[in-house]
């Protein structure tokens, strides 16, 4: 059929066999070591991340513009009411500023520390999402060069987003807590009871995730309670807000409870996240 035959051609069945073996070897190797992960992650990161960054910015711009058009009228009305509010608030603000000044003075007098210990954070932009529909992870534009490492906690707004599961030179992948394969050890803020929060693809379209193994012997936990990360995790820092309980049922063993919670973070509209650039292990050593 072909008129010109190249000097040397491998039959495609051999290529198939060869690449199958390569894939299987890769799988076996990455099961046990991190040998190829680093190199491949760096190389492919340099090839694709700059483009992803551009396309994400463009796509976000377009979706924002369409939203602008849809909401322009209600915005005008809102603007008028807001103007009135601004006037009111300026007056209020002045008095509050005075009070704050007083408060600050009193605080320094009592040498009050900040309520929560502050972690070092770095902001990152979401430039891509998981390619398939099965798992929930996303790609951010900060990587090893910015001090990101695997297992770092990621937050957005006030709530926990997930952890870093893979890093390249200039990108990192964050697996979110709603991912079907993720489990977080949590705690009810009000009572201190421990539980396990696990992502579930079957609940994802209802914007819920599942919690289980809640031992609530006093029967005090109720809907709307806050769930935060517990201190018995070796990855997550304690006290990060996960979400609020939406439903709770007793398990058939009559010892534990399980149910659903609504995450504090809106995973669908997430453009920027904060990555805590400390690891839990380092932090513990630091405390001691």
């Amino acid at each position, binding site marked *: 059929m072909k008129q010109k035959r190249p000097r040397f051609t491998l039959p495609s069945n051999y290529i198939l066999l060869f690449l199958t073996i390569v894939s299987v070897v890769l799988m076996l190797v990455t099961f046990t070591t991190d040998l190829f992960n680093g190199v491949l992650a760096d190389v492919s990161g340099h090839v*694709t991340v700059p483009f992803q960054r551009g396309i994400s910015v463009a796509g976000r711009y377009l979706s924002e513009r369409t939203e602008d058009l849809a909401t322009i009228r209600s915005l005008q009305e809102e603007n008028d009411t807001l103007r009135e509010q601004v006037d009111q608030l300026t007056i209020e603000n002045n008095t509050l500023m005075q009070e704050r000044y007083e408060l600050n003075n009193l605080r320094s007098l009592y040498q009050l520390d900040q309520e929560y210990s502050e972690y070092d954070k770095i902001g990152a932009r979401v430039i891509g999402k998981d*390619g398939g529909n099965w798992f929930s992870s996303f790609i951010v534009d900060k990587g090893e060069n910015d001090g990101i490492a695997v297992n770092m906690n990621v937050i957005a707004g006030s709530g926990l987003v997930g952890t870093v599961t893979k890093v390249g030179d200039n990108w990192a992948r964050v697996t979110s807590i709603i991912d079907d394969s993720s489990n977080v050890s949590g705690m009810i803020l009000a009572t201190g009871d421990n539980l396990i929060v696990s992502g579930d693809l079957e609940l994802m379209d209802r914007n819920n995730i599942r919690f289980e193994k809640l031992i609530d012997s006093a029967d005090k936990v109720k809907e709307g309670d806050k769930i935060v990360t517990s201190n018995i995790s070796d990855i997550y820092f304690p006290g990060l807000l996960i979400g609020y309980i939406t439903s709770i049922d007793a398990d058939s063993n009559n010892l534990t409870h399980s149910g659903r919670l609504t995450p504090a973070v809106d995973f669908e509209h997430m453009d920027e996240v904060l990555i805590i650039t400390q690891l839990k292990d380092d932090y513990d050593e630091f405390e001691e």
Partner: protein
Amino acid sequence: MKEKIIGVIIVIFSFICQVTICKFIALNDIGPNLLVIVAASFGFLYGKKPGIIAGFFIGLLFDVFCGNILGFYALLFMYIGFFNSFFKQLVYKDELPLQLLLVGVSDLFYGIIVYLLLFLLRGKFHFGYYTLHIILPEVIYTVILEIIVFFIGSLIRKIIPEETDRSEKKEIA
């Protein structure tokens, strides 16, 4: 050489689109699967070798950025390209229906394999739920995207006529 470079560009570009644009247009969290379209098209338009190699590298990119084990998706997409190459004799570049069918079946195959190996083995037994809520919507969306990709491709072929039969100008814009 030229067609190889164009092939590489198509692979990288389609992957970038998959993790960005395909997620912007996702409905109810389900987006189309452009990568299955590309791997399958390389197979049924250009034969065994392009199908296998393109599928392998598409899958490898996917493994690096979205997978947990290197090689899993590489294997999957490679076999999608390989199986589709058997239909090269039957597929005409300007005929849509058979290409739609092949892409649809490929995406169904992709969905079922991912369910079997990544969900069933972790004890998630609700196959009916996953079929109705993930696999089938994805197949439908992917087939719709294939229609668009097909027309963009034939438009490109009209503007830039193919010099030889083996030229690698594929139907990704």
